[in-house]
């Protein structure tokens, strides 16, 4: 269980085994191995995207909402507007153009989003914890998320797995995932397919193909599905044929660690 509790063990190769967070990033990077373009914010999505370009998909087009299209960051940027992004990009556009022609224009395949809360239909809250008018914690707000979720072909979500994040009821619906279930996106005029995967430190959740409720479809090595259910604020469904994550390879891990250390 060392590999998923965050304490570093030693693998046979002699390097420390992947922490759960590292594995989360590695699994997200694998998903990006088969994307043509991805829209990402800072933090773990950015790390995953750069890792994917290093390992799996050197042609991956990374788009940041700051306006850089086809950026080739060498290190993980602290902000989405770091100068390395502008200098290395194929094209740099204004923010109005980014959202009108590129996001709303449905040109970007996959978006990575994070959030403070997520519900069973992969709707997201990044606005407020508690009451909107008398908040317990005021969060940063929507940013680009609502329209990114509406306009990109698919959405992947990276969040920490815990009951504070995976909630029965969002305090605020900032971004629509699958709304109230089947038919919701269409009724609302949202064009992309919406969230297709949620990557956590414990495994991967995917919307059920029929009723769209998030279902645990994959666990990381050593993770018990009951442990995931306990970390989820609703009665989480578990897929009949639960997959186990292929452990991070030595190549993946050393690339990730090298990247983070840059």
């Amino acid at each position: 269980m060392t590999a998923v509790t965050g304490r570093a063990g030693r693998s046979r190769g002699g390097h420390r085994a992947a922490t759960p967070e590292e594995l989360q990033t590695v699994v997200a990077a694998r998903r990006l191995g088969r994307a043509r373009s991805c829209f990402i914010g800072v933090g773990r999505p950015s790390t995953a995207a750069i890792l994917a370009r290093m390992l799996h998909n050197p042609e991956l087009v990374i788009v940041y909402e700051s306006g850089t299209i086809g950026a080739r960051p060498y290190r993980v940027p602290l902000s989405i507007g770091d100068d390395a992004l502008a200098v290395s990009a194929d094209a740099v556009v204004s923010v109005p153009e980014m959202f009108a022609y590129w996001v709303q224009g449905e040109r970007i395949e996959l978006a990575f989003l994070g959030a403070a809360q997520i519900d069973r239909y992969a709707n997201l809250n990044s606005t407020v914890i508690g009451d909107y008018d008398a908040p317990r914690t005021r969060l940063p707000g929507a940013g680009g998320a609502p329209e990114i979720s509406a306009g990109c072909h698919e959405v992947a979500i990276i969040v920490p797995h815990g009951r504070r994040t995976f909630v029965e009821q969002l305090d605020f619906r900032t971004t629509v995932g699958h709304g109230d279930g089947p038919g919701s996106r269409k009724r609302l005029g949202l064009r992309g397919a919406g969230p297709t995967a949620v990557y956590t430190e414990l495994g991967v959740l995917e919307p059920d193909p029929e009723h769209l409720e998030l279902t645990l479809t994959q666990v990381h090595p050593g993770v018990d599905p009951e442990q995931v259910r306990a970390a989820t604020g609703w009665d989480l469904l578990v897929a009949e044929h639960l997959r186990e994550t292929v452990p991070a390879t030595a190549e993946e891990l050393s690339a990730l660690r090298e990247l983070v250390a840059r």
Partner: protein
Amino acid sequence: MAEILPLPVAVAELVRDGDSVAMEGFTHLIPFAAGHEMLRQGRRDLELIRMTPDLLYDQLIGAGAARRLVFSYGGNPGVGSLHRFRDAIEHDWPHPLEFEEHSHAGMAARYAAGAANLPFGILRGYAGTDLERRTAVERIACPFTGESLAAVPALRPDVAIIHAQEADHHGNVQLWGIPGVQKEAVLAATRSLVTVEQIVEELQPRPGGIVLPGWTIDAVAEAPGGSLPSYALGFTERDNDAYREWDAISRDRDRFRAWLAEHLLTTTEATA
């Protein structure tokens, strides 16, 4: 034609108590020097408009300069919360702060509509979110297809303030690198001030360069390093440590007060 003015004079002439002020710069070219000059001159009762409030508005909000905030993402990029922003919204400190929030796409459409002299902009957005009930957005039907879209009201700030790399003596301004929404902010505003890294004899057209002719701007002020701790491509580098350190400074009201006192003292001396 833009007047070339010292920054304190430009701020004194263009920014009045009670104004709506848009200070833009998307991570890049954030007009910190101008904002700090507003702090120093003690502007009050402002409607502060900005997609990403960032440290700059955290400072102005903490100092009590803002009556109202219009924004779309109030975080410290890559670090976490804006604590003065949170303290104002969560605890009315230093006083209650009205606010109106949008998505980035909505704010961008609002600025673009303002620049285009339209009363509203349209986008595919907001549908199904709780934001829709909490902000200025209406549904509008396409007269050709019947599709339902979001309409957002144009932004027309009293003043727009941006930072750019350079201007010439006629006040023609050029900026390059990540352009954000600055052009729209200036063209949407009634008055505008541009601070620049340097004033040059003649603008040399640059790849990615955006030129604002001097006659679209009211004042230009030289302010080398004026976007630090953000950056001006080709002139300064982003001070990531300052963004990280702000987290600790801003978390605590007393530390913030101390920062403010020290900062105002320093800048007052520097500009005296």
